[in-house]
């Protein structure tokens, strides 16, 4: 009897400890942090006042604040606000002068001369000098190695503080597209990974790794005509679902990549912008995995997957279906003739599979990043469709960092569902992904004809001939069935009423300077 009170106390302590542990666990799993946004939840959802801080919910955390070491779309789309290159991507898919005022390309496309913009400063107030440009381009080229688009530079010289002359090893008429490479301050060399200083319209007020990044307007920005919000926050989530719940709860103001179902359930109170995901979504297959060494097997997969059904099940239809590694939103470099090459045909797929030596199918593991619902669900649909031709699929969901290291960099995979976005508007950086020796050739595609055509296309200075050659590249990818290219998925951007804007770019960009408060 005497020991009873003691027992009860110890039980109470145990429960308290347990509760504490559980709470701690919940906090780590991505519940909202205590910061300025918490006051928004207290306000009625629809009232966006002038001093209200705009919050955008992103379904992935950024990898780094150093723009030169980024690998993924999320990082690039966020850092676009902080950094600028000599030129800058426009919503129309072109490049416009940014750090540079103007430039001249020599007739042989080997020398580019830039004049820096008058009075342009870094976000710490220091003037941008030609030496900073030289430093930045060399830094990016060094970090990204041979795969860097800047590796063609043979020399950068700075005749004076305002002029930069870039000489290339060989002629490249597309080179200007690569000069969106972010200009960093040389004096900040040691802290580029922790103290981001760029020349963009927004500077980083606070960055909490894996949680959020706070922005505020940089008053010294060169474009004084900019009319947009003064402060903004981009919050990171593990899953789009969580961000969506937060949007409904009113703690964030905008999201992109929303499905038709989600938009439907939102009701009034939001401005909806239709867009595409700017992706080539597909089932990317490792061409060195035994069954995929046979072109017939790769083609069989292309015939067995019903692109229309995938689109309807995933997004209710309305996506742009593709058959090659090309991007319909930039018609200049897209071969539309490849469309419709692989029409859904199970019998033909079975026949091709038998021709390739696998009449009874084979086992296939599809690795998918589990933070992207779209890709996980697409994999589920493909599992069903591939079962019809005897390909037994197992789905292996992994977290994003594992996907990047094992699949993208390590190439240890059989197949994966993912979407590729444009990292640069230069078509050569896009089609290099299938050049046999490229560092970015994740699917291990190898085709001598493709390599040759690509090299010709890249060096060609005449735009029409260049287009023709790139079209041929895409035709080869279709004929050789390098992977199963599915679609550029339809999506929606949603802004809470009170905010308008959100410029749509041909690459992944969250342009905060395009958002206005009403």
């Amino acid at each position: 009897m005497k020991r009873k009170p003691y027992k009860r106390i110890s039980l109470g302590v145990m429960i308290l400890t347990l509760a504490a542990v559980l709470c701690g666990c919940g906090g780590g799993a991505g519940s909202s942090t205590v910061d300025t946004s918490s006051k928004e939840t207290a306000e009625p959802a629809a009232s966006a006042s002038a001093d209200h801080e705009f919050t955008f919910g992103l379904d992935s955390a950024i990898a780094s604040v150093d723009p030169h070491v980024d690998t993924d779309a999320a990082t690039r789309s966020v850092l676009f606000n902080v950094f600028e290159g000599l030129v800058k991507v426009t919503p129309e898919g072109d490049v416009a002068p940014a750090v540079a005022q103007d430039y001249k390309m020599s007739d042989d496309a080997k020398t580019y001369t830039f004049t820096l913009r008058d009075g342009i400063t870094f976000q710490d107030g220091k003037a941008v000098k030609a030496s900073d440009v030289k430093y930045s381009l060399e830094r990016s080229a060094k970090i990204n190695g041979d795969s860097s688009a800047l590796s063609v530079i043979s020399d950068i010289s700075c005749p004076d503080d305002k002029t930069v002359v870039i000489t290339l090893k060989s002629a490249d008429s597309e080179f200007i597209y690569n000069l969106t490479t972010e200009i960093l301050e040389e004096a900040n060399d040691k802290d580029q990974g922790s103290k981001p200083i760029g020349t963009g319209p927004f500077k980083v007020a606070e960055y909490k790794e894996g949680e959020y990044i706070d922005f505020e307007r940089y008053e010294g920005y060169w474009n004084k005509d900019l009319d947009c919000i003064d402060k903004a926050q981009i919050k990171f989530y593990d899953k789009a679902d969580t961000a969506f719940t937060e949007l409904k709860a009113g703690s964030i103001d905008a999201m992109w990549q929303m499905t038709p179902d989600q938009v439907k359930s939102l009701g009034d109170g939001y401005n909806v912008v239709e867009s595409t995901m700017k992706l080539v979504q597909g089932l990317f297959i490792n061409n060195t995995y035994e069954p995929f060494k046979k072109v017939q097997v790769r083609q069989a997969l292309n015939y067995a997957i019903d692109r229309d059904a995938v689109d309807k099940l995933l997004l209710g239809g309305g996506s742009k279906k593709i058959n090659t590694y090309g991007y319909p939103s930039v018609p200049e470099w897209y071969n539309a003739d490849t469309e419709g090459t692989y029409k859904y045909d199970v019998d033909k797929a079975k026949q091709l599979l038998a021709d390739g030596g696998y009449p009874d199918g084979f086992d296939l593991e599809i690795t998918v990043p589990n933070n992207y619902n779209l890709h996980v669900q697409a994999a589920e649909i493909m599992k069903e469709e591939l079962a019809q031709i005897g390909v037994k699929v197992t789905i292996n969901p992994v977290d994003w960092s594992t996907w990047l290291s094992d699949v993208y960099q390590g190439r240890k995979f059989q197949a994966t569902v993912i979407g590729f976005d444009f990292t640069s508007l230069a078509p050569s950086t896009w089609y290099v992904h299938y050049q046999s020796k490229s560092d970015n050739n994740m699917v291990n595609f190898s085709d001598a004809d493709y390599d040759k055509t690509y090299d010709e296309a890249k060096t060609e200075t005449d735009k029409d001939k260049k287009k023709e050659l790139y079209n041929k590249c895409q035709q080869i990818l279709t004929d050789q069935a390098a992977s199963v290219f599915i679609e550029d998925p339809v999506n929606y951007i949603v802004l809470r009423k009170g905010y308008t804007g959100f410029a749509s770019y041909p690459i992944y960009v969250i342009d905060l300077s395009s958002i206005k408060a009403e």
Partner: protein
Amino acid sequence: MRKYNYSLIAGLIITAFMLAVTITAHFWTPYSVTAMSSMSKNLPPSAAHLMGTDNFGRDVLSRVMSGCGTTFFIGMCTVVIGAVFGTIVGAVTGYFGGILDAVIMRINDVLLSFPSVLLALIFISFLGTGKYKIIIALGVMFIPSFARIVRSEVIRIKSQDYVKSARVMGAGSLRIIFVHIIPNIRVSMLTAAAVGFNNAVLAEASMSYLGLGVVPPEPSLGLMLSEAQQYIFVAPWYALFPGIVIALIILGFGLISEGLRGLAQK
């Protein structure tokens, strides 16, 4: 006048019903569990689809029936692993005592002081996701609680006269543990198993909900809840029915363990 053990009876009826559903699902479901159709996405409950359809046009009833199987299977395997190893550890430490007992039981205490889901998460991060891996992770997590219960019962019984008599008659330790002691603590063990099963079902649901358990498209009640989350405003039935079924399974076993406890006290 005879007093009925209502908890036990109600628990057995609910559990028998859920088991019957599970077994039926093994041979027959109203629709295919995995077949998708873009024509029947997110349909509300109707005569054709009693629980409606999900975002891929799959019949929710069929998936719930099949998902029960997954849940029962994981729950059962987890309890079996936990009970077998827990009983061995508990019986040996309880019967022999000494340093072995002290060391093993302290390790036990350390394991018990973590929430089981948290520990299972650590296991999963080493093993990877999947049905069988989650069984191993949860099974190991359930060993300490069984060991503790069995140990205290063994200590209580080993000083009873009939055990002493057996020892005097020259029976070996193993014989005493498995023939004389274990059969006498079966009610406590059954109660522990019922409680353990409940915890296993909840743990599986939470792990699958977090995307760390059963891999899609295999149906699991927890995974269905997780998938349903993004459609909760468009298709609330998708989240509702798997949730109700999890609650029913838990209720059934909860009542059984309550009833067994009543039996033991008589």
